[in-house]
């Protein structure tokens, strides 16, 4: 990453959500560092990583927020959905229970994120094909009916991980472009991330960060 990290045209905030133990942290480490850890420790609260990728003709810095899956952390993690332009809703294809609650996760997301957020349903752990409990078609159908992108991945053997992130980033990018064409002056405001901890800042100060360069 190094200096290339600093060279980007867009920052897209993407959140990783889903039940505890479905592989969110390993999907993230596979994407940002090409690493997989068999005893990846529990995520407590929220952690995040970034990776800058080329999308179309622009450098996009994906700022990916990995969240704890456990119910009791929801009140803390959901505050971090705000300002996200994309979400990967992950379930474990070998544990039907993690798929059964996808609808609840969606509701949670739409309650706290902007309505325009792009959501991708991700069935992880395809390397454990012999233990599959959620048929691909079933999840695919659900995604279609709910206007979600859909993909199956394996963070362990890398299958489709790159593709999952690239697809959602591309979708977000084309949405941003459309929005820019419609109101070129406005985009920074309409897509800006908000402060989940109360607005102690003035818009001027915020601007000092990125806009008025």
């Amino acid at each position, binding site marked *: 990453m190094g200096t290339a990290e600093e060279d980007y045209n867009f920052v*897209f905030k993407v959140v990783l959500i889903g039940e505890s133990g479905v592989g969110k942290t390993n999907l993230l480490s596979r994407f940002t560092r090409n690493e997989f850890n068999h005893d990846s420790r529990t995520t*407590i609260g929220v952690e995040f990583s*970034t990776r800058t990728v080329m999308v179309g003709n622009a450098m996009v810095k994906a700022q990916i927020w990995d969240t704890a899956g456990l119910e009791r952390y929801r009140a*803390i993690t959901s505050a971090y959905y705000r*300002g996200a332009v994309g979400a990967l809703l992950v379930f474990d294809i070998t544990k039907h229970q993690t798929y059964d609650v996808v609808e609840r996760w969606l509701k949670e997301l739409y309650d706290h994120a902007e309505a325009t957020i792009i959501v991708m349903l991700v069935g992880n752990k395809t390397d454990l094909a012999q233990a599959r409990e959620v048929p691909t078609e079933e999840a695919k159908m659900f995604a279609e009916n709910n206007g979600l992108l859909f993909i199956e991945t394996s963070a362990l053997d890398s299958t489709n991980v790159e593709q999952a992130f690239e697809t959602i980033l591309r979708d977000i990018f084309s949405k941003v472009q459309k929005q820019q064409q419609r109101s070129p002056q406005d985009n920074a405001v309409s*897509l800006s991330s908000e*402060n989940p901890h109360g607005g102690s800042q003035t818009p001027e100060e915020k601007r000092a960060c*990125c806009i008025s*360069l």
Partner: protein
Amino acid sequence: MSGGGGPRQRGGGSAERPPPGRRREELLGSKRKQKLLLIHQALTSDPVAVETLRGAAVSEGGLLTDEIRRKVWPKLLSVNVYNLPPKPGRAVRQNHKDYTQVQLDVSRSTRRFPQGMRAEQRQVLQEQLIDLILNILRAHPELHYYQGYHDIAVTLLLVAGERLGSALLEKLSTHHLRDFMDPTMDSTKHILNYLMPILQRESLRLHDFMLRAEVGTIFALSWLITWYGHVLTSFPHILRLYDFFLASHPLMPVYFAAVVRPTAVLSPGPQPPVERCPQPRPARGAEVSPCSPLP
């Protein structure tokens, strides 16, 4: 920016030159002996000199060895070692609502066990850890499991074993960790919010920087609720901190966060992305590095 200021000068100020290695070791050795003696005297006096033990736990080097910790930690928590609970046993697992989650978290905690420990031995301890945790939860239905509780429990288990570990964990759970074990994390969030005002007094520059960066206080959540056990890789460091926290007010981990944060954020090198840019950023004219850390 580490050390706050320009590059550190080597060999400057000959009057303060440290003693040669040998002499330094001897000094440390005699200090250590003094401390061991002090702790021994405090433990054998009648009644036990708890305040002296508290001082020893806080001061340089902490409680020095696990053998001493096994004697002093119970005193710091008023745990009666002559009346310890029995070993938890497997029965605690039956139909417990948190069993699956505890098992999931414990199985993912192999890094918390000493490097080089045989896998079979570690697995035995992991099973004990599950029982230890569920035993407390079963005895106290008002306490709710949180991810990170296992980080505290494993530290106690590794130092004190099943029976003493269980007694220590119970005391901590009903006192120091009590707020984290509410049905919701509201109290925990509230406690985390103490961080910013404390930081404001400790380092106004950092405080203002963090407000500007809009990072919130969530980064310190695991520090607080695991007493840093989740994020530190060195077990001796974790134990040194546990000595300190066991001898201090339950809010000490928050104060501690305000002290470690300046070096973590203001030092150069790879950092958590503390910037949160409004997006997108204009493609051209970016002479100034966006969201740059403090000058």
